[in-house]
């Protein structure tokens, strides 16, 4: 696949410099030596993919970097991107026993990145069984982390897997939706390249959102894995939402990552206070917006963003407006916008507007960021796959859906969690699918 769609833009790189620079070799060894090497380590338990964290860390300490990387990849084929995007404060590093001794937790993410960078520098691909040694053939719909993990595991075990993606580039949100200072789109595509080297097939730019396309897939493949993620971002449901100058958070992030949005000016209002909202607000600041507000209808204590993301946004200079709700978007002079807002207060679980608290914010861009909606139109076409509240109903341990031909994992099942959750789900589904064939073959 070509990475031509990913610009190597000097300005972009300067504006979105890495949040956490890589460890030098000696710093990595010093950090690795600090690890206590816990038995049945809590960090491993907290990781959705159960990476053997002390195992890979101690391999760094001894200089067995290849062994370290393989230890990571055996558990999590997207170990490189997870090292960059995982909210480790609430996962492995949050579980590190060191904090109970008033010591800093081991910098697991940076160590994982150290091992993965070395693996990448050596140009390696993890070992896999001979392709076709399992007769199973699977189509994975969507090229995000869930499908990538599922397809990679299938190929490593000798089965065949083909990823079908409607966008130009694979990687899903890893490529299009993660803040560039955490994970560069080019690095995501590079990681996908390693998965392709395992023997995974890719069909990008292919839309299967039709009965006919799905029927064709059902004929061509033994099983189908749904790693379709979520749909577009939810609409605010207020007048003026379709005006020029309104762009949702994922559109904004994808636009600057692919070089279609290089510059912002003036005032940007992000509506919402989740992690994606913060990514968009920080991006707006870095792209040049002088003033960036985050508008949230509840209070500081209610935001769904991780604490470290909230702190980061404050450092970036993002300003927060609590208990304020958007009402309408109107046009203003010089192509600007007026966002009508009102102060609200929570009464018996309901948000009620405060009288005389309405005012219009003059701004240049409004960024709705109140979560993604389910992929309703695709899901309706899937016969026999149970869908509940916009999510595919699948067994979390196996990814099985109500239709034995279909498996599913990732955001389309869990409603939107982290990359590492999608990887774990995709891999579990792959292992379950392999078991299915064992039964059939016997």
């Amino acid at each position, binding site marked *: 696949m070509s990475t031509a769609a990913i610009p190597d833009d000097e300005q972009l790189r300067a504006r979105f410099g890495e949040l956490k620079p890589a460890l030098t070799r000696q710093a990595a060894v010093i950090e690795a030596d600090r690890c206590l090497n816990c038995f049945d380590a809590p960090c491993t338990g907290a990781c*959705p993919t159960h990476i053997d964290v002390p195992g890979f860390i101690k391999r760094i300490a001894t200089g067995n970097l290849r062994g370290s990387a393989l230890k990571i990849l055996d558990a999590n084929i997207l170990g490189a991107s997870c090292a960059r995007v995982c909210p480790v404060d609430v996962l492995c590093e949050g579980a590190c026993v060191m904090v109970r001794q008033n010591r800093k937790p081991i910098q697991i993410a940076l160590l994982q990145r150290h091992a993965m960078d070395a693996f990448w520098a050596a140009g390696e691909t993890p070992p896999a069984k001979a392709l076709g040694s399992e007769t199973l053939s699977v189509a994975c719909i969507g090229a995000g982390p869930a499908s990538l993990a599922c397809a990679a595991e299938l190929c490593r075990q000798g089965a065949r897997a083909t990823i079908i993606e409607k966008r130009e580039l694979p990687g899903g949100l890893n490529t299009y939706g993660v803040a560039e200072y955490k994970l560069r789109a080019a690095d995501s595509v590079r990681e996908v390249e390693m998965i392709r080297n395992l023997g995974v097939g890719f069909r990008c730019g292919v839309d299967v959102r039709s009965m006919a396309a799905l029927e064709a897939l059902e004929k061509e493949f033994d099983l189908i894995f749904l790693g379709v993620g979520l749909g577009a971002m939810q609409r605010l449901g207020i007048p003026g939402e379709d005006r020029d100058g309104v762009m949702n958070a994922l559109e904004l992030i994808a636009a600057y990552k692919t070089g279609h949005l290089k510059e912002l000016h003036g005032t940007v209002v992000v509506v919402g206070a989740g992690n994606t909202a913060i990514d968009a607000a920080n991006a707006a600041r870095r792209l040049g917006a002088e003033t960036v507000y985050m508008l949230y209808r509840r209070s500081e204590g*209610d935001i769904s963003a991780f604490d470290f993301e909230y702190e980061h946004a404050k450092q970036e200079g993002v300003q927060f407006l609590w208990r304020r709700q958007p009402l309408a978007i109107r046009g203003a002079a010089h192509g600007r916008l007026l966002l009508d807002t009102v102060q609200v207060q929570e009464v018996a679980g309901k948000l009620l507007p405060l009288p005389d608290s309405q005012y219009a914010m003059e701004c240049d861009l409004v960024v709705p960021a109140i979560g993604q909606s389910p992929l309703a139109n695709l899901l309706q076409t899937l016969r026999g796959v149970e869908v509940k509240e916009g999510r595919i109903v699948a067994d979390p341990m196996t990814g099985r859906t109500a239709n034995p031909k279909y498996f599913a994992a990732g955001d389309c099942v869990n409603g939107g969690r982290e990359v590492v959750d999608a990887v774990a789900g995709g891999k579990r589904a792959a292992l379950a699918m392999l078991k299915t064939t064992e039964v059939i073959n016997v």
Partner: protein
Amino acid sequence: MFDIGPDISVKGFAGKIDSPNPFWLASAPPTNTGEMIMRAFDAGWGGAVWKTIGEPVTNVSSRYSATDWNGQRIMGFNNIELISDRPVEVNLREMAEVKRRYPKHAVIASLMVASNREAWHDIVVRAEDAGADGLELNFGCPHGMSERGMGSAVGQVPEYAQMITEWVKEKACTPVLVKLTPNITDIRAVARAAKRGGADGLSAINTINSITGIDLDTFVPRPNVDGKSSHGGYCGPAVKPIALNMVQQILADPESALPLSGIGGIGTWRDAVEFMLLGCGTVQVCTAVMHYGYRIVEDMAEGLENWMRDKGFRTIEDFRGLSVVKVTEWKHLNLNYKIVARIDEQKCIGCDLCYIACWDGAHQCIHLDRVTGPVDGHVELHRTPAEEDAESRARLAVTPVTRKERAAVFGQGPYPTPLARIPRVDETECVGCNLCSCVCPVESCIAMVRVDKDVASETWEERVGQGTREQGN
């Protein structure tokens, strides 16, 4: 009230050597020149054993190598340097200068010459003329010099050691210390020979034969001298336990016991106190100074003083040798003494290193399943480490994305650590081996508690002696 504080000075060591404190620099690179020794005395060192004086040698380039451990530099240190490469006259001229400027500090001349009486007589007279307060006979150097019939080549043959000590004593007016090599089956053999030869004191231990490591790219051991290496002498923190044992052996043996200057891995006042508790009157330091410089002596002197103050000791003689009688042969240990491990749940951080150590390295009596009391009669059935591990790996973990989920993950239980990760000791099976308390990273989290109340002491000797005493010894 006027508090004069503890007195850490040394008086009359090996008969006549005084020094303001028991901390001497060992004969080594830190005592190579008069200028260095004077700076060391300014920093607070009480004495110095001059880098061994003898016919000047030619040293190789690349002389040291170290053993690092877990990120810590110089756990052990190795050298292939020989004795002084400076002319005898220069060393002795500088020694006279040092003694003139620092009359109260101990300056000991370390000596090594060819094994003939005249050579030894000559060097002894010259060193004492230069003002040396004592002489240390280097019978220990394990590399290079030994190939020329000196150093440990003497120190490994009791007869030679005795003979040369006798030659030295024929001329010496100052105390004669013999420095012992540990590279021998029983260090007491040479200690006894030195004593028979009339030595006034001993220094122990010299360095231990070693190869510190091998370069995995070139396959050449360190230190690399143009593609080859040679065994060196090992020292530093790693050798302290070996040195303490040898010091104890010497001082517990009446035929060996002499005033002893302790050497081997001493870097802090704590190390020094341990050597003194085993009977050493002074201690010698090298590796720690090579690592950090002369300045480390400040804390050594202060720490010793403050410890003595805490314990109520006024002089070093008040505590010197107190631990000698606390080392005995195994057969005299009480077989009925019984301790068990107790884990403090408030301190446990849940690393479970004690658990895996007990299962794989000891007696399988620390468990993660919090079963109380015997489950299955005397033999309890517990999950193995592999089963515990597999169970964790099979457990579904998800990122806690909402505040509520995070509160559930990081919520507080009765202890700082989730109860499921706090191991429990089966005291009926615990043999009191100490392994768990050795691996526990948290200070005083695992206590070894005595449980043998009201059981009379019985040693192995007493137990087997019951039926055998009549038949002889």
